């Protein structure tokens, strides 16, 4: 009997489009799983020739879910292009507020609307119930909280960037507005409620993980390296810091690297079946040098969190693995909610900081030709790298987005789940569901399109080595 190929397409309740192929050997054993990224965006090419000051507004169009991350990563790179290494306190804190607002709304969207159906109803529940509408029917208070938390984050983005989606706040060297007293007071009204709801969401994610710990240990989990930005003192810092990489055991691979030199330590490999590249740590090589990014890696990599409630939650999380890095794929949900609480605490602190009403918004410096901007986006470390010529036009752009960093891990997670849940050559609903749940843990952003309802038709094809269709299943 010849080798077979199982294709799952499209993958629902992730941001964008993806397709999964599971390759079988002649004994019907899973040999490899591939998450194909079939969309090609071309941003790196078509921003060439554009003026550098336009880039932070232009590149955020990559995404409608976390545009602020691209906006700020590009703005940080353009700070470097105009020779600015230190912003004014008002500018930096406004950008941080924008970023925490973004983190808060994006994590809320993922947890309540995309992932909670899986956690609340179980991976095998009927797809007709296991979606956000089902959550709204059975747990209306949670659905409302999700909407209100997302709205709150969006209001912060509007107050700092001018619009809820695709604003213009960050400009090279600073910011174009401060926070008015009226805007501040409006946001302060609801912050305590947001913190309370974040605590409750964290508890759901934590309790779920504890209750299902044995099952989740085998669910698409594997040991991996972890990469994250950390502050100089080792604290978690989602806006700025140095690069740190650790092994699955917590050993240091590199630490306190200036991210302007990222390309000396991280490279990208191209594979013919995906438009998404495969990044790896150069010193280890492409085979074993891949790593994870995002909430799980950030919590694993940092020494502490500088807000009290999130720090308590981090300690509790790390205690599960005796202080060593946690490598469970499904632990992403728990860590994402630790960050949700951290973001809410940070927003509260910033709203009470009078620097946000300052009027010193922009600084200028000596023009440079090349610069890198990094930020911890909701889904992980985001790299923006640009070269700008003497006419102020961009000549080179390299973007390594968070989901790209998680490319190999997502493939491995799918492979692990397929090995466990595929029996024979029959495609079951259970297999489909589990593969999707594994991918969804990484909150991948496969493009700017969203399919939050989970109602897209799901089609699987079973093909032999010659590409002949053996079986097809759709729902």
């Amino acid at each position, binding site marked *: 009997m010849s080798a077979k190929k199982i294709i799952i397409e499209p993958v629902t309740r992730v941001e964008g489009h993806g397709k999964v192929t599971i390759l079988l050997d002649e004994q019907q054993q899973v040999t490899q799983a591939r998450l194909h990224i079939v969309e090609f965006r071309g941003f790196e090419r078509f921003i060439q*020739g*554009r*003026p550098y*000051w*336009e880039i*932070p*507004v*232009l590149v955020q*169009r990559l995404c409608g879910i976390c545009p602020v991350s691209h906006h700020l990563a590009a703005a940080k790179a353009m700070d470097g292009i*105009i020779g600015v290494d230190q912003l004014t306190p008002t500018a930096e804190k406004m950008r941080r507020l924008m970023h925490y607002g973004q983190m808060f709304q994006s994590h809320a969207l993922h947890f309540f609307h995309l992932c909670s159906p899986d956690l609340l109803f179980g991976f095998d529940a009927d797809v007709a119930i296991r979606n956000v509408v089902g959550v709204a029917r059975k747990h209306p208070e949670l659905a409302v909280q999700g909407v209100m938390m997302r709205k709150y984050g969006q209001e912060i983005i509007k107050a700092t*960037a*001018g*619009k809820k989606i*695709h*604003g*213009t*706040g960050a*400009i*090279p060297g600073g910011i*174009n*507005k401060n926070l008015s007293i009226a805007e501040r007071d409006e946001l302060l009204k609801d912050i305590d409620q947001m913190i309370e709801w974040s605590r409750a969401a964290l508890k759901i994610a934590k309790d779920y993980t504890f209750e299902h710990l044995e099952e989740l240990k085998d669910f698409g989990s594997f040991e991996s390296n972890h990469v994250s930005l950390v502050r100089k003192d080792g604290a978690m810092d989602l806006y700025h810091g140095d690069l740190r990489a650790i092994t699955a055991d917590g050993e240091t691979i590199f630490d306190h690297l200036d991210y302007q030199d990222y390309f000396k330590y991280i490279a990208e490999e191209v594979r013919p079946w995906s438009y998404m590249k495969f990044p790896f740590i150069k010193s280890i090589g492409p085979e074993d040098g891949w790593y994870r990014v995002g909430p799980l890696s950030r919590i694993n990599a940092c020494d502490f969190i500088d807000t009290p409630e999130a720090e308590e939650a981090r300690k509790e999380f790390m205690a599960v693995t005796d202080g060593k890095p946690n490598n469970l794929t499904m632990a992403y949900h728990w860590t994402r909610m630790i960050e949700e609480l951290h973001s809410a605490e940070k927003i509260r602190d910033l709203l009470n900081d009078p620097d946000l009403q300052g009027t010193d918004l*922009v600084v200028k410096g000596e023009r440079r030709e090349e610069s890198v901007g990094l930020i911890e986006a909701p889904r992980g470390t985001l790299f923006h790298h640009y070269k700008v010529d003497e*006419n*102020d*036009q961009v000549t080179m752009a390299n973007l390594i987005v968070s989901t790209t960093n998680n490319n190999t891990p997502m493939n491995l997670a799918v492979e692990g789940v397929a090995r466990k849940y595929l029996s024979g050559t029959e495609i079951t609903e259970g297999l489909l569901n589990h593969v999707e749940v594994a991918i969804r843990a990484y909150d991948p952003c496969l493009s700017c399109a969203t399919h939050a309802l989970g109602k897209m038709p799901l089609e699987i094809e079973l093909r032999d080595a010659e590409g002949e269709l053996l079986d097809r299943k759709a729902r």
Partner: protein
Amino acid sequence: MADKLKFTIDGVEVQAEHGQTILDAADAAGIYIPRLCAHPDLKPIGSCRICTVVVNGRPQAACVQPAAEGMVVENDTPEMLEHRRNLIDMMFVEGNHFCMFCEKSGNCELQAMAYRFGITAPQYPSQFPDKDVDASHPDVMMDYNRCILCTRCVRASQELDGKNVFQSIGRGFGRKIGVNGRQALGDTDLNVDDRAADPTICPVGCIIKKRVGFEVPIGERKFDHEPIGSEIEKG
């Protein structure tokens, strides 16, 4: 001869000085006739045709047509609205107008005109023409993707700056704004303080001062709160 002459716009009686254009008389009376190539500091040329009105049954460009005693002018009618909407639509599809990352957004007269006329998407197929960006000047940049050939820069350079930096060259679909014939902007004597480089001269985001970008936040831009023409209608 009477001091002032009288005519009507959409049935409203308007007074005009002798020699005054319909557009200027309408402005003075608080009636807005949409326009793009007309600018109060420049001589009118009747190029964009957005200000076309029906005068005694015949279409005329209000920016160049002198007012006359007893004229009957139709301006804000369904027919003229449709006509202007089509012209604006064509300007969008003949260029590459990406408002979402254009720094002129909120201050752009073409965008503001589209909003005033309720245009949310073009009805004609986009032409996606291959246009250049000229960033050779140290302080001013031209993005031809956004040019609507209004020639306000040409007239500002000649009439206000006493220079001849910009010219209209070519014919038909190949028409474009040239700088010193077919040179680059960096080779001209354009100064960043010239009126031709002033952001109020170029109605769109074609001629922009470098390194300004998005300094003005959303909410403080010219058309963020009121549609284009409001300042005239308020009198």
